[in-house]
């Protein structure tokens, strides 16, 4: 036991003295998280704003057949009508203009005679500005339509309200907290999983493959410390580093959201009610710790197998994908309802559970299966790490 603590303390001290590991463990999560969250929101906001403010270029064909309509559309904001010479379809295709409005010859006549009349809009669906133009033209035309109808009703002394008999308003039963949780439900679990790997990765490599590379491993094995104690001490050091990372990342996210708010889509700034209940927070923490334990033991096993820092990195790199892919898949599957078996898959189970906790849904069977399976996996991973640590060919492969 004393040896475990000695090794644990030494490895942490060594980690703290290393700028590279310190970067990965503390600085990166501290800076990257705010940057990602704020940056993503701001970027989306900027894109939407840009699209809204952008002026679209349109043109009319047979402009003279509907002077009133043309005038009405031209008066709309951010629509610019251009005169062109040549084939309109060609122009729209080449994105020189965003939309063309084809007005039939008999337009005014039909309106006067109160007959239905159609106009054709030429658009290009692979030009985003074109859809924008279409939307703005449609809005303008429907206002124009209303205007004409109101005039007609007025002429015949009919109340114009006769048209608008059904109006729709919405009321969201999801509380702000639930909305916030839902919005964060994808990002937060992903970050926790990510930092529980990244945070411990450098420490893990440094104290296993790095120890081989620096040729300190043999001296360590020559001490009376049991192999199991060595693995355990190192494992605790990796787990501590990873946990620090996760906590730093989460605190940083919390700070950023409480200052800037959270707007993943940029459309509206959801003010998140962050008053997570204490039991949810505890649960979140327990599952995070277990997740950290699983990954720490797994990374340590991989890293001790490698004989150099570089080799270890090239093994651990692809393993990210293995962990992250299922999580992303689950998140992009529409309406995915996880059955209980999904809570047996490490990392996936934590992500699913985090999501549930964040929207205040508690399913005891999900919680239990997740916790028990994570404990089971960390024991297995630790067992494997110990086994690898007693393999001569792994320790002394040159």
């Amino acid at each position, binding site marked *: 036991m*004393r*040896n475990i603590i*000695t*090794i644990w303390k*030494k490895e942490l*001290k*060594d980690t703290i*003295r*290393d700028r590279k590991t310190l970067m990965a463990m503390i600085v990166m999560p501290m800076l990257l998280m705010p940057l990602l969250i704020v940056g993503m929101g701001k970027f989306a906001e900027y894109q939407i704003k840009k699209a809204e403010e952008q002026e679209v270029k349109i043109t009319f064909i047979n402009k003279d057949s509907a002077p009133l309509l043309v005038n009405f559309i031209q008066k709309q904001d951010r629509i610019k009508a251009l005169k062109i010479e040549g084939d309109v379809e060609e122009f729209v295709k080449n994105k020189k203009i965003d939309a063309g409005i084809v007005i039939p010859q008999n337009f005014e006549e039909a309106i006067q005679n109160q007959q239905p009349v159609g106009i054709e809009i030429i658009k290009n669906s692979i030009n985003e500005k074109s859809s924008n133009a279409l939307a703005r033209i449609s809005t303008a035309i429907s206002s124009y339509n209303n205007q004409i109808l109101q005039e007609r009703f007025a002429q015949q002394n009919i109340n114009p309200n006769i048209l608008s008999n059904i109006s729709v308003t919405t009321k969201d039963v999801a509380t702000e907290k639930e909305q916030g949780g839902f919005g964060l439900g994808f990002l937060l679990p992903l970050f926790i999983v990510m930092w529980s790997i990244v945070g411990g990765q450098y420490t893990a490599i440094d104290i296993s493959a790095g120890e081989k590379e*620096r*040729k*300190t491993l*043999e*001296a*360590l*094995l*020559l*001490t*009376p*410390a*049991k192999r199991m104690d060595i693995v355990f001490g190192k494992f605790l050091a990796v787990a501590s580093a990873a946990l620090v990372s996760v906590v730093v990342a989460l605190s940083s996210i919390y700070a950023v959201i409480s200052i800037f708010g959270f707007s993943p889509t940029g459309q509206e700034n959801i003010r998140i009610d962050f008053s997570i209940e204490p039991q949810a927070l505890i649960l979140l923490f327990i599952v995070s710790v277990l997740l950290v334990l699983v990954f720490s033991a797994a990374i340590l096993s991989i890293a001790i197998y490698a004989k150099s820092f570089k080799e270890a990195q090239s093994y651990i790199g692809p393993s990210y994908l293995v962990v992250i892919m299922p999580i992303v898949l689950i998140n992009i599957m529409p309406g995915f309802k996880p059955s209980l078996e999904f809570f047996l898959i490490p990392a996936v189970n934590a992500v699913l559970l985090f999501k549930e906790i964040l929207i205040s849904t508690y399913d005891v069977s999900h919680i239990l299966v997740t916790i028990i399976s994570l404990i089971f996996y960390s024991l297995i991973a630790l067992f494997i790490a110990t086994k690898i640590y007693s393999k*001569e*060919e792994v320790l*002394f492969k040159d």
Partner: protein
Amino acid sequence: MNSVVIVKNLTKEFDGIRAVDRINFEAKEGEIFGLLGPNGAGKTTAIRTIATVLSPTDGTAKVCGFDILKNPERVRENIGVLTTDIGFYERFSGRENLKYFGQLYEISDQALDTRIEELSKILEMNDFINRKAGKYSTGMKQKLAIARSVIHDPKVIIFDEPTSGLDVLASQTVLNFMRKARELNKCVILSTHQMPDAEKLCDRVAIIHRGKLVADTTIEAFKKRTNTSSLEDAFLKIIKERHLNGKFYA
């Protein structure tokens, strides 16, 4: 004098290749025992097996009465090994490196401080012991490695090529350290292919060649038997004979 290292039929195979092939020898307290052999003869593997870092394929060894298979932790407590490839925690000072290993030998803090002072004095490390080990020269590293290997004051000291790559001054410090250990009644095993060093220091020598022990005797008897005047000539002669005649046995 007691035999504190007793090696019996020790064999170590890697993927079916015998790196150490049924070797037997004994080393006593108060002597320097030379384990000689060309590069790749199996000296380092034999040492690693005796020190319980590797486990034997067959045979066994006893260190201070503890069997390497039954009591590996006790064996490691009684043995100090200076390995050929030495490395340190480079972000730690020499002192911190020594402290860490001392703690793993479960030496109390106070005793450890005294021991570090003592070793620092003997090995002339006072000038650099508080500097980061990553900045050490080869000679400094070797001294620190020696200090680390004997931090727990073991009864058995095994030095594997301790003077390779060292200048004359540093070599002298290492050789003197071994003499001093002998005076303190330690059992010192020197593994080397530097015959002049061995001739100066060793009381008895064993020669390992291709994993097999081909001689185990005093230097004088060895020279006499091969009819040579120096250990180096005797060594060369016996190695060459082995090459010419695979059936040669000492």
